[in-house]
C-alpha cells in the first residue's frame, strides 16, 4: 500500500497548477515513469488541460522523451481510465477486445428491453392489481433506479430480496401502528361521504368548487363500496376542497380519510409493490447483463465494475504490480462508492497516491456520488483507524499526524470577497465538522482600483402585481442588461489589467436546466446573447427547411413538406399568395414546380442509392443551406445549427452501428422527432439543443452544478431563494455499518425502497408521517449539507464581483437560509449598505430589478460565396465492360466456317462456356484431356444439346493457328488481370480474355460469343471499341510497346476483327 497523500484544495486555491506540478515533479525526480501514471479528473477537458500543462512544462525543460511517454499514461475521466483498463484485459474478462460502450440513451433502451423480457404474466397481473390502488406507481422508473443503485454499490441481484425485507421493516416502523381491521376505516369514510352528500344544500352552496367535489365524493363512494378506492383518492379526500359554506360538513370526511395511514390494505399494497419491484429488479439486473453480453457491449457502470473486478484479481494485480508509479485522483470528493473502491485498489498497487479534492465542494450526490462515504474516507485517511489495515504504514506516518496538505491561498477572487467568504462559510462548515483552517484562505490577489466597485451586489427582483408573468428571469435579465450598460470594470485574466466589463465576463448561474432556458430567453429578449445550449434546434428555420427537404426526399408525395419549403423559402412574407397557391392545386401540386423542389427531386433520382449521411449532405447542398443561413442573418449561429443537426445524424449512425441495425433516412427523421419531443413519461426533456457560440458578446448561462471548476469576473446567482426538500419515498441507498471500513467501502449497503402510494408531488398523510422518521432526518441532514456545499461552490466562482438575486424579501428562503439557520448572524437580507454579515461590515450595491420591454430585433444578412453547386465526382472504379464507345473496324479476318448453334440456348451461358474453354484450353494438351474439358463445360452450362465438344476445340485451334501465323514470336496470356488509372482518377480494372505478348508489340483480345450472322457479328464488334480501347491504353501505359492493337474474336462466326476507337 502506497502512501496516500491528500491535498485539500478550496475554491480558487490553485489546484490545477498544483496538480500539474505534482505530475511534473514526480516525473522529473524519476519517482514516476510518465507512462506509469494514472490520473483521473472530473471532465475530459480537465484531463486534457492537465496533460497539456505537464507536457508543455516537460518540453520547455528539454524533457521531450518524458513528454512523449506521458502520452502513454492513463490520464482521463474515471470512466475513460476504467475503460482503458477493461480494454487492456478484455480477454481476461472473457470479452472481446474493442468492446463498444453504450451511451446513456442507448443503455436505457437496452435496459428497457431487458426489463420487458423479465416481466411475466404473473408480474403483470400483480402490477395491474396494485395499480388499481396506486395508479401512479412508476414501476419502470423505480426498478431502473433500484438496478442503478445495486450496480453502483456492488449489491448482487440475489441480495435484493433482503433489501425488500429491510425496506419494509423500516417502512413499518416509520408508518407506526397499523389498524387491525381495514373494513372499520372504510365504513367510517363511507358514512362521512354519505352524510356529506345528503347534507350539502345545493340551494345554499351552488359553487362550482363544491359541485366538483360532490362529483368526486360520489365517485369515491362507489369505489369505496366496491373496495377499489385508490390511495391518491383517499389522500384527495383528506383535503376535501369545498366552498366555505359547506366546509364544516366536509370535516368528517377529512378526519376519516386521514386515517388511511393506519389502513392494513395500504401496508399490504406497499409491501406487495416493494416485493414485486425488487423481484423485477433482481431478474432485470441479470437479464440486462446477459443482453449486453449477447450484444457485445458494456455501459458506463460496467466500465467501473469490471475495472474493479480486474483490480481485485490476483493474476491482474501480479501483472500490474510495479507498473503503476503514481495515481493522482482529482475532485475525489465527488467519488461514487464503486469509484472509491477502485481508488483504494489502485492505491494498493501504486508506489504513490495523491488525492486532491475539497469536502466543501462535493455536490454530485444525485449522480451516485456519496459525500457521506467520502467524508468517512477522508476522516479515515486523515485521522487513521486502528481496526483495519488499509493504510497501515502510511497512516502511521507524518501524513496521519499532520492531516492533509492544505492549499490555503486564493489566487482567484478579490481580497474582500475572499475575506467575506471566509467569515461566512468557515463557521458554517465548522458546524458540520470541517475545521475552519480547511475553509479559510489567504487572498493573494491585489485589491484593484475603486473602478471595480463593491465585490457584492444584491438585486431584489420585482414583478409588478398586474403582470401576468411570474418569471423571475425577466427582472434578473434586466439587471444583467443594466450591469453591461453601466460598464463597470473587471480585471482581465490574461493581462491582469482593469478594463470595462463585457458580456463574456458575466455568468448567470441557475439552479435548474429550465431556469437556464428561461434565463437565456429573457436575455435574448433584451438583445443579450447567451452561451447556453438552448432547446429548439428543430424549431429553427434552418432545421425546418432541412427536415422538410429530407422528408420530400424520402417521399415525394409528402405534400406538406413541399408546402413548407415553399412557405419558408418562396413565400415567407406573402402568406396570402402562398395560401392561394396551396388552394389552387390540392395536395401541394402548385409547389412541386418550385426550383428547390425540382432540384431536390432531380438529385434524388441521381443519388437513389446514396447512404443516409451522403443524402443529408446532398440535401444541404441542393437546397443551398449555407447561403440561406447567411441571408437570414445570425449566419454563424445558423450554420452552427446545421452542424448540430449533422452531428445528430452522425450520432444516430453511430448508435445504429452499436445496435447493429441499418441507419436509414426515415430512421433519422424519427430520431430528429424524438430529440425535439419532451418525453414526460420518462422525464426526458427535449434534447435538440441549438448550437452554442462562445463569443465576447455572449453571457454564460449554466446550472450551478455545471459551474464547478469554472470562474468568471462577474457571477450572478439566480434561483437561490428556491427551497428543495428530499423525498422520503423512492429509492435510496442505505448502510448497516456504523463505522466506515476503508478496506471494504461498500460493505453493508442495501437499497431502501419505500413506494409512494400517491402522485410524486402530492403531500399527504403518508408523506407527513414518513417525514417524522429517522431515515428522513438523515436524508434531510445530508441534503442540508449538500445545499451548503452547492452554495459554497457557486459563491466562489466570482473573481471580481458576486451578484445575489432573489425575489424581493425572500433572499433567505432557500440556500442562504441554510447559513442563517446555522447562525442567524452569518447573513441577513440587506436593506442598506453596509450590511453586517458574520460580524463584519459588508459593502454592497443594492439594485432592485424589474422586467423590461424586449429589444427590437434587427438581423443583418451575412456574406456568402457563390454557391458552387453539387460537384459530380468520377467513379472510383470502372469495369471496362461498362465503357461504351463505338469505333471503327478493319476488314475482318476469316478464321474458319461459322459454327452452328443448335436450338436457342441462354446467350450468357453460351458465352460463359466458350470463354471458360478458351481460358482453360491449350493446344499442347492431350486430345482426350481437351475433349474432357470441353464436354464437362458444355454439360455444366447445360449446352450439351447445342454444341459439341469438337466445336469448342475447333474455335480454340483456329485462334491458335491465327496467332501462330500473325504473331510468330507471340505468347498468348489468358485471363490477364489489368488495372489502369485514368486521367480523372478513376481506376479501370478487369481481366483481358487474352493478351498477346510479342517483341516490342502486343495485342488485346476479347472473345464475343455472338450467335448472329457473320455480317451482323462483324458489325457488332465495332461497339466494343471503348472496352478494348481502355484495355489497350492500360497496356500501353504499363509497357514500352511501340504498338498495341485490339481485336474482337468472334468464335461462333469464325472471324477476328481489329477495332479502333
Amino acid at each position, binding site marked *: 500500500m502506497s502512501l496516500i497523500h491528500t491535498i485539500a484544495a478550496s475554491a480558487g486555491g490553485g489546484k490545477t497548477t498544483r496538480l500539474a506540478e505534482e505530475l511534473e515533479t514526480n516525473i522529473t525526480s524519476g519517482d514516476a515513469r510518465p507512462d506509469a501514471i494514472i490520473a483521473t479528473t472530473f471532465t*475530459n477537458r480537465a484531463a486534457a488541460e492537465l*496533460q*497539456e500543462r505537464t507536457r*508543455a512544462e516537460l*518540453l520547455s525543460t528539454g524533457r*521531450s522523451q518524458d*513528454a512523449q511517454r506521458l502520452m502513454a499514461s492513463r490520464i482521463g475521466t474515471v470512466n475513460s481510465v476504467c475503460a482503458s483498463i477493461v480494454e487492456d484485459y478484455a480477454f481476461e474478462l472473457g470479452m472481446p477486445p474493442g468492446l463498444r460502450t453504450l451511451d446513456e440513451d442507448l443503455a436505457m*433502451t437496452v435496459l*428497457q428491453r431487458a426489463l*420487458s*423480457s423479465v416481466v411475466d404474466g404473473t408480474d*403483470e397481473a400483480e*402490477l*395491474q392489481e396494485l*395499480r*388499481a390502488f396506486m395508479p401512479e406507481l412508476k*414501476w419502470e422508473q423505480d426498478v431502473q433506479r433500484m438496478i442503478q443503485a445495486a450496480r453502483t454499490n456492488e449489491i448482487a441481484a440475489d441480495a435484493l430480496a433482503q433489501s425488500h425485507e429491510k425496506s419494509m421493516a423500516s417502512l413499518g416502523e416509520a408508518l407506526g401502528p397499523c389498524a387491525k381491521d381495514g373494513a372499520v376505516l372504510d365504513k367510517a369514510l363511507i358514512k362521512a361521504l354519505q352524510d356529506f352528500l345528503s347534507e350539502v344544500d345545493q340551494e345554499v352552496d351552488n359553487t362550482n368548487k363544491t*359541485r*366538483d367535489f360532490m*362529483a368526486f365524493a360520489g*365517485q369515491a363512494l362507489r369505489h369505496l363500496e366496491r373496495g377499489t378506492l385508490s390511495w391518491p383518492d383517499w389522500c384527495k379526500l383528506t383535503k376535501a376542497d369545498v366552498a366555505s359554506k359547506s366546509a364544516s360538513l366536509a370535516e368528517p370526511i377529512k378526519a376519516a380519510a386521514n386515517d388511511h395511514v393506519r389502513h392494513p390494505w395500504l401496508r399490504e399494497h406497499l409491501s406487495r409493490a416493494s416485493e414485486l419491484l425488487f423481484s423485477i429488479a433482481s431478474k432485470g439486473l441479470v437479464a440486462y447483463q446477459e443482453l449486453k453480453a449477447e450484444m457485445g457491449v458494456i455501459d458506463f457502470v460496467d466500465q467501473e465494475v469490471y475495472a474493479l473486478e480486474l483490480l481485485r484479481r490476483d493474476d491482474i494485480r501480479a501483472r500490474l504490480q510495479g507498473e503503476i508509479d503514481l495515481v493522482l485522483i482529482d475532485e475525489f470528493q465527488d467519488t461514487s462508492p464503486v469509484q472509491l473502491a477502485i481508488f483504494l485498489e489502485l492505491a494498493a498497487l501504486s508506489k504513490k497516491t495523491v488525492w486532491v479534492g475539497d469536502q466543501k465542494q462535493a455536490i454530485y450526490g444525485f449522480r451516485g456520488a456519496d459525500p457521506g462515504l467520502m467524508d468517512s474516507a477522508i476522516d479515515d485517511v486523515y485521522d487513521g483507524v486502528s481496526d483495519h489495515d488499509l493504510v497501515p504504514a502510511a497512516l502511521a506516518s507524518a501524513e496521519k499526524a499532520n492531516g492533509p496538505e492544505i492549499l490555503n491561498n486564493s489566487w482567484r477572487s478579490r481580497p474582500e470577497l475572499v475575506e467575506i467568504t471566509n467569515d461566512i462559510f468557515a463557521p458554517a462548515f465548522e458546524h458540520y465538522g470541517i475545521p475552519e483552517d480547511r475553509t479559510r484562505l489567504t487572498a493573494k490577489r491585489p485589491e484593484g482600483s475603486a473602478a471595480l466597485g463593491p465585490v457584492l451586489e444584491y438585486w431584489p427582483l420585482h414583478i409588478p402585481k398586474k403582470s401576468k408573468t411570474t418569471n423571475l428571469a425577466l427582472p434578473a435579465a434586466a439587471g444583467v442588461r443594466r450591469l453591461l450598460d453601466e460598464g463597470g470594470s473587471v480585471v482581465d485574466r490574461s493581462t491582469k489589467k482593469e478594463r470595462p466589463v463585457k458580456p463574456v465576463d458575466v455568468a448567470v448561474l441557475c439552479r435548474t436546466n429550465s431556469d437556464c432556458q428561461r434565463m437565456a430567453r429573457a436575455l435574448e*429578449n433584451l438583445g443579450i446573447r447567451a452561451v447556453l445550449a438552448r432547446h429548439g434546434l428543430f*424549431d429553427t*428555420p434552418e432545421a*425546418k427547411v432541412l427536415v422538410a427537404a*429530407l*422528408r*420530400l426526399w424520402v*417521399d*415525394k408525395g*409528402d*405534400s*406538406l*413538406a413541399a408546402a*413548407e419549403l415553399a*412557405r419558408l423559402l418562396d413565400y*415567407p412574407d406573402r*402568406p*396570402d399568395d*402562398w*395560401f392561394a397557391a*396551396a*388552394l389552387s392545386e*390540392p*395536395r*401541394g401540386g402548385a409547389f412541386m414546380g418550385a426550383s428547390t423542389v425540382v432540384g431536390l427531386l432531380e438529385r434524388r433520382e441521381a443519388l437513389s442509392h446514396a447512404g443516409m449521411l451522403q443524402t443529408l449532405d446532398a440535401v444541404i447542398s441542393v437546397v443551398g443551406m449555407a447561403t440561406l443561413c447567411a*441571408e*437570414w442573418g445570425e449566419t454563424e449561429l445558423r450554420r452552427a445549427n446545421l452542424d448540430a443537426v*449533422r*452531428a445528430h445524424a*452522425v450520432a444516430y449512425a*453511430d448508435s445504429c452501428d452499436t445496435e447493429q441495425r441499418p441507419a436509414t*433516412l*426515415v430512421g433519422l*427523421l424519427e430520431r430528429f422527432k424524438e430529440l425535439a419531443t419532451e418525453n414526460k*413519461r420518462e422525464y426526458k426533456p427535449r434534447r435538440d439543443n441549438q448550437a452554442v457560440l462562445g463569443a465576447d458578446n455572449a453571457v454564460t448561462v449554466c446550472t450551478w452544478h455545471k459551474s464547478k471548476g469554472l470562474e468568471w469576473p462577474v457571477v450572478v446567482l439566480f434561483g437561490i431563494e428556491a427551497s428543495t426538500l428530499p423525498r422520503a419515498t423512492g429509492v435510496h441507498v442505505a448502510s448497516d455499518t456504523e463505522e466506515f471500513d476503508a478496506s471494504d467501502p461498500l460493505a453493508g449497503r442495501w437499497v431502501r425502497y419505500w413506494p409512494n402510494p400517491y402522485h410524486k408531488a402530492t403531500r399527504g398523510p403518508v408523506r407527513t408521517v414518513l417525514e417524522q422518521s429517522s431515515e428522513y432526518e438523515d436524508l434531510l441532514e445530508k441534503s442540508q449539507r449538500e445545499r451548503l456545499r452547492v452554495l459554497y461552490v457557486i459563491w466562489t466562482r466570482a473573481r471580481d464581483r458576486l451578484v445575489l438575486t432573489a425575489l424581493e424579501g425572500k433572499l433567505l428562503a432557500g440556500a442562504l437560509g441554510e447559513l442563517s439557520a446555522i447562525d442567524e448572524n452569518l447573513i441577513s437580507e440587506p436593506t442598506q449598505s453596509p450590511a453586517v454579515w458574520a460580524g463584519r461590515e459588508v459593502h454592497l450595491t443594492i439594485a432592485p430589478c424589474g422586467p423590461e420591454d424586449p429589444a427590437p430585433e434587427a438581423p443583418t*444578412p451575412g*456574406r456568402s*460565396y*457563390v454557391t458552387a453547386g453539387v460537384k459530380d465526382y468520377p467513379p472510383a472504379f470502372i469495369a471496362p465492360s461498362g465503357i461504351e464507345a463505338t469505333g471503327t473496324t478493319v476488314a475482318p479476318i476469316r478464321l474458319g466456317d461459322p459454327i452452328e448453334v443448335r436450338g436457342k440456348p441462354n446467350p450468357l451461358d453460351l458465352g460463359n462456356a466458350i470463354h471458360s474453354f478458351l481460358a482453360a484450353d491449350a493446344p499442347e494438351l492431350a486430345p482426350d484431356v481437351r475433349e474432357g474439358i470441353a464436354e464437362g463445360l458444355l454439360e455444366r452450362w447445360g449446352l450439351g444439346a447445342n454444341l459439341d465438344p469438337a466445336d469448342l476445340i475447333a474455335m480454340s485451334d483456329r485462334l491458335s493457328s491465327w496467332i501462330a501465323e500473325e504473331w510468330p514470336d507471340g505468347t498468348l496470356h489468358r485471363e490477364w488481370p489489368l488495372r489502369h488509372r485514368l486521367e480523372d482518377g478513376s481506376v479501370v480494372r478487369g481481366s483481358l480474355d487474352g493478351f498477346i505478348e510479342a517483341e516490342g508489340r502486343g495485342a488485346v483480345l476479347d472473345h464475343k460469343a455472338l450467335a448472329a450472322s457473320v455480317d451482323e457479328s462483324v458489325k457488332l464488334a465495332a461497339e466494343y471499341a471503348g472496352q478494348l480501347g481502355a484495355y489497350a491504353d492500360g497496356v500501353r501505359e504499363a509497357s514500352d510497346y511501340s504498338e498495341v492493337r485490339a481485336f474482337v474474336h468472334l468464335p461462333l462466326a469464325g472471324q477476328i476483327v481489329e477495332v479502333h476507337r
Partner: protein
Amino acid sequence: MTDQTGAAVHPHPLWDEVSAAAKERDAKAMVHARPLGTDLPPEMDLSLRPLVSPVLEWTSPEKLPMREHESPSGLGKLLGCPLQWALEYHARLGEGVADAPAAPDVLLYGNLAHKLLERVLSEWPLTPEQAKARATTLFDEEAPRLAEALFLPRYGAQRADVRHRIIRAAEAVARVLEKNDATVEAVETSYERDLGDIKLGGRIDLLTQTPSLVIDWKWGSGSYIAHLRKGTALQLAAYAYLTTNGHGRPKAGYFSVSSGELHMESGAEIEHANTQGSYTMDDTWDAVLVSLKARRDELGACVVHAPGAATPLAKKLEDKRTKEGDLRLAPQCTYCSFRSLCGKDFVK
C-alpha cells in the same frame, strides 16, 4: 477544435511540442502566413431574406365553401382554427411516409381501445366479468396486430399498462350498463343528419337504450371533463344531435378508458357515472350553431383565422364562450402539422 459530433478533440499530436517551443522562441518568427483559398469564388453581399412570422388572419382568393359532408372533428377544426380546416380539407396537405409514429403514444392507445371495446360490446349482453374476460382474450389475440409498436421489446411497461386499462375499461363499461339496465343499441355505427345546407355525419362509439345514452371513448379524461364543465364538448354535442330521433335526445358522456370512469353532461342521473358541470348538450349545441354561423360568415368574406398562430406552443389556449353565445374553441395546435405554415413554430 471539435470532431463531427461536436466533441472536443486535441488539435494536433504535436500541439504541445509546438506550444512549448513557442514559449521559448519568438512566436511571431514561427508563424508563416500565406493566403488561403485564393481560388475560391468571390464573396458576395446578400440581401436579407425574410423569415416566416405568425399570421393570425388569412385571406382566401375566393370564399371557401363548406364541405357537403362534414364530420364532428372537422366541425371542431373549423371552429377552433379555420386555417387548419382549410389546409386539411381544401388544400389537402398531408404528411408522407416519413412521419409514421415510431413510439407508442396516446393516439395509438386510443385507437386500440376503440377497436377492442367495439369488439367486446358487439357481443352484448355481457356481465362485467364476461366483458373483462373477453377484453383480456381480445387484447392478447388482436393487440399485436392492431398496435404493433406497443409490442416492441422496450415498451413492455406501456404494454402492460395499456392492457390493464383497456381490460378494466371493458369491465367498467359493462358494469355501468348493467347497473342502469341499459342495452346496447349500436356500436361504432355511422349516423348522418342534415345541418342546414350540409350533412353532418360521424361514427358513434356506443349508443344504448333505456336509458338512451350516447358515449364516446376517450383515452384520457382531464381535458374532456373540462369540456363538459365549460359547455364546450362540441364533438359530444354533435353526436347527441346526430342520434336525436322521435323519442328525443340521448344523454351524452365521455368514457375515459385510462381511468375507467364515465363522465356525463349535466342532468344525466346515471348510476356509476359522474355528472360534470352545469351545461347540457343542448346548451353546447346552441353555442356551436352560433359559432358555426360566425365562421361561415367569415369564410364568406374570404377571411380565414388562425387564432393560435401568435401564441407560443407552451402556452395553453383555453376554450371560451363569448357574451353573444359564440363558442371560441381553443385551436388544437399541439398535434397540428401546420404550425410552420401559420407561423406558430416561429413565435419568439
